[in-house]
């Protein structure tokens, strides 16, 4: 008797609670989505056969908030649902090179050309640029403030053995920084004053700020984090080394048949459309008093200066 009653009483309550709560939450969670979808279906376009587009991109496009702003516009206009995977440019290129992404948005010329040469990336398209700056402590112990050449400034940093923070991570910023070190004929890796943060740009700037160190950063991320930093822009405007140019590439469908090339094409078309280029030119002005990116669609690389 005791045994029977035990079985009947036993329906594990926790399990029931968990299951129903999990299902309810997923249903509500999905229910929250159609708001965006219904607005999308009211506009005039034929829904794409494969609406899912994977975008492998550098972190700065996500961290500045640009993607969060434009991806809903893209969805409303075309029905494509872009999934941005924000990693370093090196990792983003690696995803494209394996056919794990449909479209890439990078800021690392060497990686982009490498991807094109290997046949993984096609139709490399200029989208926009901003620039890199050298940020450092306001008292500037190395005395590089106002220098015009980033190479000369880096030589001075190395001579003064002041702490320099680098992201490493094979990011676009990392690549730009290594070129300056190479031009200065200095190999900083392994030096006690050269610290690899191994984190994103925003986090690396915080480390630099806390340590009173110098750091090469893109201007957009610096502006976004400026309020939390005791770092000044010390060197800027060296167009030979400090331009930060963003290109989009389609992942080659001939090499990777599973990619959504129609979606990739549509997304790049959208990025270079006058509407979005106009949007990029004013993005961030309201919060930072200056734009975070400058639109470059239709220009040649030489015109931008890259």
């Amino acid at each position: 008797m005791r045994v029977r009653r035990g079985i009947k009483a036993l329906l594990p309550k926790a399990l029931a609670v968990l299951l129903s709560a999990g299902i309810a939450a997923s249903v509500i969670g999905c229910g929250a989505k159609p708001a965006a979808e219904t607005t999308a279906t009211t506009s005039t376009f034929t829904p794409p056969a494969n609406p899912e587009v994977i975008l492998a991109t550098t972190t700065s496009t996500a961290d500045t908030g640009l993607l969060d702003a434009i991806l809903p516009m893209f969805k409303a206009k075309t029905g494509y649902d872009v999934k941005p995977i924000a990693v370093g440019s090196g990792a983003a290129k690696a995803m494209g090179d394996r056919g794990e992404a449909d479209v890439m948005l990078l800021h690392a010329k060497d990686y982009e050309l490498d991807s094109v040469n290997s046949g993984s990336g096609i139709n490399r398209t200029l989208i926009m640029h901003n620039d890199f700056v050298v940020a450092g402590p306001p008292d500037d112990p190395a005395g590089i403030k106002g220098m015009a050449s980033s190479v000369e400034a880096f030589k001075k940093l190395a001579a003064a053995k002041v702490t320099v923070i680098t992201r490493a991570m094979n990011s676009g910023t990392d690549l730009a920084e290594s070129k300056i070190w190479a031009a200065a004929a200095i190999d900083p890796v392994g030096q006690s004053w050269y610290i690899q943060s191994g984190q994103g740009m925003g986090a690396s700037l915080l480390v630099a700020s806390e340590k009173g160190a110098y750091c090469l950063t893109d201007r957009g991320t610096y502006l976004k984090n400026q309020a939390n930093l005791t770092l000044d822009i010390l060197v800027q405007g060296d167009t030979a080394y400090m331009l930060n140019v963003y290109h989009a590439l389609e992942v080659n469908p001939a090499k990777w048949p599973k990619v959504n090339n129609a979606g990739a094409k549509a997304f790049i078309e959208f990025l270079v459309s006058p509407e979005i280029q106009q949007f990029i030119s004013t993005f961030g002005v309201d919060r930072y008093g200056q734009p975070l990116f400058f639109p470059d669609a239709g220009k040649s690389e030489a015109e931008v200066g890259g």
Partner: protein
Amino acid sequence: MDIIINGIVQAFQLLIHGDRGVLEVALLSLGISLSATAISLITGVTLGTVLALTRFTGRRFLISLVNTGMGAPPVVVGLMVTIFLWRSGPLGLLHILYTPAAMVIAQVLISLPLIVGFTLAAIQNIDPKLRMQMVALGASRVQMVWLLLREARLPLLAAVMAGFGAIISEVGASTMVGGNILHQTRVFTTAIVQETGRGEFGLAVALSILLMVLVYVVNLVLTFAQQRSKLR
């Protein structure tokens, strides 16, 4: 310090205004982690019971694997699941990478060993005389297992809390297999990492507070279930 105070204020504002974005993140976090916990619970309790009540060759080896799995680094699980779900991977045909389903899979793999391990320990901890008594009273095998589980309900609910706690607070695997995509796979932990990276510390702290409140509420419900059933 001002950041934390600012974060607390912001957390209250988000709660009072019923911020849609935060609500969505909360529901996604809950939906994904509760589903994963439920799946782990069903499979984990079954596997744990089998491991506790049967004897076969390789059993101890299997248990050592489970015990190691209890401490498996979530990022390693995340990396493996990502590679399996890639288009080029063995499960690429499923097309579920960067969806909540992928996150549920990763979270099940993280929480399952915890629940198997806890179940195993709980059932083995029951006095073997009870089993003999049940057999003597003519209990069938099914009846015996049910009774043993009922006897072990306190540690089993602790297992649920440990499993749920491990996955709702997990960030590495969630970022890798989910991608932190807005409206789809952005959960509390991945959003906190992102907002911290963006320098939005106030919002990051606010989200952290809301996450802890959520975890507390879930554990409160489970604790009540645990302690109430003890009295019966």
